[in-house]
């Protein structure tokens, strides 16, 4: 299973990188979502994916009766999913406001912080 997951993760990363390299904010956002999924699956696969029983302890026992899936990566990913969603939502709204303000979704034309025709700093003391 890990080998198949590695292939899928590689694919997710490749497509995410390709989309992030675009100059259009919307495509970059799509890429970001894919990158989040890729990273989550990477963490999951790194914790191995052989056992398929959920890590839940039966009512009458102190430890699971059989071998369960690794709980640690699941806990990490659970946090990551939520964080990446809030990140995505924020960026989406930001992109929306930027588009309203600047009238473009082309990152090359968003030059407020680092203008193209920046002047030399003052040369005095």
């Amino acid at each position, binding site marked *: 299973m890990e080998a198949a997951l590695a292939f899928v993760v590689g*694919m997710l990363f490749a497509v995410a990188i390709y989309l992030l390299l675009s100059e259009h904010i919307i495509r970059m956002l799509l890429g970001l979502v894919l990158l989040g999924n890729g990273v989550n699956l990477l963490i999951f696969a*790194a914790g191995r994916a052989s056992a398929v029983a959920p890590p839940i302890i039966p009512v009458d026992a102190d430890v699971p009766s059989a071998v369960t899936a690794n709980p640690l990566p699941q806990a990490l990913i659970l946090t990551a999913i939520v964080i990446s969603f809030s990140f995505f939502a924020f960026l989406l709204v930001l992109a929306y406001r930027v588009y309203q303000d600047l009238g473009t979704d082309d990152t090359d034309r968003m030059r407020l912080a680092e203008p193209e025709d920046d002047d030399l700093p003052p040369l005095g003391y």
Partner: protein
Amino acid sequence: MMGSDTRFLLILALPFLAAALAPILFRRLPAIAAAGLALFPAAAFAILLSALAPVAGGTAILAGFNWIPELGIHFSVRLDGLSLVFALLITGIGTLIVLYAGAYLGQHRDRGRFFAFILLFMGAMLGLVLADDLATLFVFWEMTSVTSFLLIGFDHEREAARRAAIQALAITGGGGLALLAGFLTIREVAGLGSMTQILASGEALRMTAAYPAILILVLCGAFTKSAQMPFHVWLPNAMEAPTPVSAYLHSATMVKAGVYLLLRLNPALGGTALWETILPAFGSVTLVGGALLALRASDLKMVLAYTTVASLGLLVMLIGAGSQEAVAAAVLYLIAHSLFKGGLFMVAGSIDHGAGTRDIERLGGLRAAMPLTFAAALLCALSMGGVTPLVGFLAKETIYHALVEGDAASALLLIAAVAGNALMFAAAFLVALAPFVGDRPGAIAHPHEGPPALWLAPLVLGGLGLAAGLFAPAFHAAFSVPMASSAAGRPVAIDIGIAPHINLPFALSLATIAIGIVLYLTASRLRRALVRGLEAIGWGPDRGFDQMMRGLLRGAFGITRILQNGRLDIYITVTFTVIALAVWLPMTLTGTLPAVPVMPHLRFYEWMVLALILIGIFAVVRAKNRLTAIVSLGIQGFAVALLFMLLGAPDLSFTQFMVETLSVVVLALVMTRLRLSPSDHRPWREMLPDVALAVAGGAGIGLFLLRLTQRPFDNALSDFFTAYSRTIAHGRNIVNVIIVDFRGVDTMGEIAVVMTTGLAILALIGIRVIRRDGAPAAVSPAAPAAGEARP
């Protein structure tokens, strides 16, 4: 012989204590503040005096404690002949300077700040000369640079003062870094961490292969601090500082730090051909060049500043000359110089205070109005001119005596010494005589003596110069012999007295004075000629500094334009290129590429889910319209959720379902309003590099993961959580227990992040959109407003 006494560690705290008190004292008790602050250096001076007898007997007093034991760094001081005389000069002249500055600054608004700075400097300088451990010394060395920066830039509302401060910091700070490198080399190569160890090491440093590197690094530090040409430019510019600063830092103390270091290291680094070539070469050029530039200047402080440069050149030249007598001459001249130059600077300040100008060509006839200042000025100038019975005479006789006995090379040095001394003789009297004699120009309306401290302080320094000459044997026994012996590394005898002997050095002395008098009489013609000559050359190191600074700024700007070019696609390309390299290089270089995996045995529905993910992501890339893109993104997201479900992660699956649903809904809402095309209309030529980088990055990560999963897995953490989830945390869902219990604080942080994001989104939606042209935008941003040009 060595002794130990922690009192001498404590005197280091006195100036810093005074610096901390200064601002409060000036606010609460302005009338007596300066006098009160002067008590601190005076107390340090008195304590130091008590060490005179044991140190004259050859004892070196050591004290200190472990500072950073892990690095073998101590905070330690060493009081021997050399450091004692320096410390006495620093605290003694420092006391006078504090009194003088109190009168000089009058009711200046920032007096408190000024005194805090100058007392901080005093502490730093005292620490520098007392320090035994090299790290301690370096810390104080840099502290003098920083406090000097603060004092030169004291009047920070003028650009000239700011420039001078930056220049001094850049040059002396840069030299300080070289010095640090030198000290570290000494530590690494020879294992020597303190002056005491270095002085006891004999030939160790001279024998190492790193000797030339050590020497040059140390000399970079010493030459920048002690203003050797071409690093001298900061010193005349430092005259932007208030006059008490010039008198104290830039003549009597700080600029001698480099000379101190050379004297201190002379027994360990000196005596080699390299030492005896570099030092005299730099020193003699600085001596003659500085003295000539002194005669070019017409501002009293500038004249004095350039003679200081010349004097430092003379000192470096003497230390480099090598003989014991040359070291003795350097020591005598150093003491004499601190006394007369500090005094002359104070005189210049008093003249400025009393007559309102420091321009030689506009001064004259002040003798009647300022007789006490005149007396102080004459005492100092006679010492500077080397006239018996002042201490300057002893120094000059010894200098000539030391150089007369040498070979052809020292004949050159002798010529430089005579020329430099004659020029400095003229300069001395230009400052001390010319303003007082002749007719008083009408522009000077009401010349007057200042408050007592303004004439008393230079008078005391001039008087000390006279006393040192009159009581030469006692002076030698207490000060110059122990100091010269420390600097030479073996006992040195000095017996020069004020009675002239008829010999070659005395003849040279007379010649120096005769040439000096001629130069003095022709000073204004000489000045005009020098000004014309320098104007013809045009370029100098001072202008070079400006060019360097501008070049630095332009260079930094250019590099910033390349690195911070403002193009997001380039930033992202660089980021992912580095990531791809970071994944690929270690795997290929160390030959740890993963083994070819066997075809996994998966169930049919597992293959289907994986295929669904792949279909989803490719559909996202190829989507021609918004709806396809959103739906495809949803497909891959739900497929990932399904996969989690199949692999025993129901919690992840539920969360992923919810999040994907929300994402699709939000995305659909925003994208329909934006009317943006999700597809990419670019020619293949532009897309190919992106595709290549994406494939490289994706393949790298995939292989990296494959390699990772082919290695044995360490289950320790997971086993811990599984074992204790029920027994300790009383929960059956292990994933939930980890999140809310074992890693509860993490989860709280996560909730905080989500909440902050929510607030930020709320704020973003709430703010009124202002178009770049200032007009409020329509909510529907269909097109840019009419007439709005976009590049």
